[in-house]
């Protein structure tokens, strides 16, 4: 039995402790917005926030998540209203869209730590794979969101 707090909701789950968080959340909890891409923490499709850190959950055991605050793409905002989601729409970032949940979660964690990232910061932080090749749009959307965040503060 593992107890997880996902997007503010507590779930008591009858799963093996070593079952990866990704599969617990997709197949058992039923939140499928987070994707499976590689199973080795190489591609970033499975990125969630765990206590605010972007983490690749395909290799994290369920037990790791207990007692921590887990946020998935479904919990990034209640209505796609976060600055990043708006920027993703404004820049028309997704093509197939499969990697974009992970991209958004990685970008969100980046902006939380570094509100005005440089291109080099983005290169270093954004190592999620996109096979459609949307990288230039992702970069533009992160800069756009960073700009709008600043304006909101002003």
């Amino acid at each position, binding site marked *: 039995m593992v107890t997880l707090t996902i997007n503010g909701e507590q779930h008591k789950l009858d799963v093996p402790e070593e079952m990866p968080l990704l*599969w617990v959340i997709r197949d058992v909890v039923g939140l499928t917005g987070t994707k499976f891409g590689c199973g080795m923490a190489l591609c970033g499709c499975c990125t969630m926030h765990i206590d605010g850190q972007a983490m690749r959950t395909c290799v994290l055991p369920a037990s790791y998540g207990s007692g921590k605050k887990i946020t998935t793409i*479904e919990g990034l905002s209640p209505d796609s209203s976060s600055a990043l989601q708006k920027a*993703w729409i404004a820049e028309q970032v997704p093509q*197939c*869209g499969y990697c974009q949940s992970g991209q958004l979660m990685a970008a969100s964690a980046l902006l939380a730590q570094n509100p005005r990232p440089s291109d080099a910061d983005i290169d270093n932080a954004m190592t999620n794979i996109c096979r*459609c090749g949307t*990288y230039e749009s992702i970069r533009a959307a992160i800069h756009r969101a960073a700009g709008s965040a600043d304006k909101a503060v002003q």
Partner: protein
Amino acid sequence: MNAALRRSDFVRLTASFAGSLVLVAGADGCSKPSQTQQDFAANGGFSPNVWLSVRPDNTITFVINRSEMGQGVMTGLPTLLAEELDVPLSKVTIEVAPPEPSYLYPGQKEMNTGGSTSMRDSWLPLRQAGAIARAMLVQAAAKQWGADPSTLRTNAGTVVDASGRTATYGSLATAASQLPVPQNVALKSPDKFTLIGKTTVQRPDIPSKVNGTAKYGIDVVVPGMKYAAIARCPVFGGKVKSFDASKAKAIHGVTGVVQVPTGVAVIANNTWAAFQGKSALVVEWDEGPNAHLNSEDMFAEGQRFARDPSKGVVALQRGNVKGVNGKAIEGMYLGPLLAHAAMEPENATADVRADSVEIWAPTQAQTRALRRTMKITGLPAEKIAIHTTMLGGGFGRRLQSDYIEEAVEVSKAIGAPVKVQWTREDDTQHDFYRPMSVNAIAAVLDESGRIAAMTHRIVAEATGREYRPKQFGQAHGIDGSALRGISDAPYDLANYTVIYIEKEYGVPVGSWRAPDANWNTFVVESFMDELAHAAGKDPVEFRLAHLQPESPASLALKSVAQRAKWGERQSGIYQGAAIMVWNGSTGALVADVSMNGKTPKVHHVTAVVHIGTVVNPEIVIAQVRGAINFGLSAALTGKITVKNGRVQQANFDTYTVLQMADAPSIDVYALPSQDHPTGIGELGLPGIAPAMGNAIFAATGKRVRRLPFSDSLA
């Protein structure tokens, strides 16, 4: 079945409908009514074509017969309907058609998505469908108001008269359904377009792709569904000899193990348990005849064939290459096998019952999947429903139906609905690869530095054998598709021979974004560069001298040279140019490259494309950028190697792909045109590797004739 699992939930993008009226029928006016049309007809509904419906509650639904895999068909095709019907795209519900004959365009034999054909094939039929429906709605309003239809106009889903009186399309739907379907309706002239060619059209699939609600194949859940993973023979074509499932069955969550044609399937209550069970299986394989297959041997054999004048058939001949005197140049070019590595590993869900089958899959090839399912189950087409989900990438991999057939086999074996999920390793090691290609290319330059003769001998496996077996047989061993990027290259060559040598190695091959052109263009455009340098000419000027003036290739090359500031040297940056063609589309690009020791970096790419009318400028830019990045990824490090019949790469640590830090900025321009659109999903890809190789030559003097660059420059 659960109402939440209808086709519509996977493909519909806006609210559901409740109403009784559909405007449906083939654009040619003679297609057999679809089941949906029949359902609506039974409710007093009406049908000018299968592609759109207007209901009394003002719900408008568009149906497209292509799969959305990121290339934008859910935007581009509805744009054509919306433009002529005169409705805002944001108010429309979009569905993907089932693979029924009524949803095929005249002349189309199968429902599939590939070859950059969606816009080209849809351009007239969908605009006609929208225009016919609009004309009927106007006619209905004219009748209601006692007005002359020519005095009425339409605006955003309403008919408006001269006094400003309006009626919504929904309010006119029932009346429109009573009218005869006109056969000829004028289409809008381009100067009247409000959506086609405009940058204001937003992709309707994007909101669902930023909040996790878009449904891909991997997200399908059916009541009572099991999860399965399959252990397949690591050697191509091998079979199960025997297996021990005791350890697999001991895994928590595993409920069964069954043998299927492609291997041994572990059935479980969740994906992870199925993966664990698969790893715990002990299988003894009959490895079959491919157990000694090695890619280095394949390359060696390919080169022997390329040099052996007794091999091959003449695929293209212009003039006579024999006896032409001048300066001779030759090169041997080697292209590796490549995997697709779409982000969504293969998967499909099937529910095989005694008298019917239901399938949910991310597929580019619905008709192929349907036919194979008929064969496996013995059921007729009308008993098989195929629901197309969003695709987490396609790139040609999902033109195959192997992973769907597996789900059908497993469901049939266990008598329950099942989702078969591949691991990344399965996906990399059981692909239908971009074929290996060996090319011996040679040319003679005359005294003025023009190409006097060229001979190109290609040794490659034919993807046509798989997709078009009949035509392949009839063509006496010439695979027309294997010549893409060569037979349609734009150069004026008076004496030119192309010899095609079909070589079947035993590795499954298939379409990989811009099939065949993705490699052939590297050979042709690298070699053109070799010839330019041998002739002492500027590579752009040399190409222009071999192109028809004012041809699309010439215009694109001149334009890209100007935009990329060709010839204006920047410190440490070297440029390479290439022309690319794909299925009627033409383009040219320039890559700006620097060298850090032996490692090349592409900083910027400028691309100019000629694709006829541009329907959605933002999607054209996105597709060219995406195709360039896909090609760059392969050019930098992409290769699949085979040892003892086994693929040596498995995951993204061994089959590395492009990341943010290595992605260049890319400027894309389309030449203005009002011609019939061609296609843009693939055109951008073939030019990047040769442009990069040509820039590397400019930087280092080293000519790379074998990809990937990471190996050749090491």
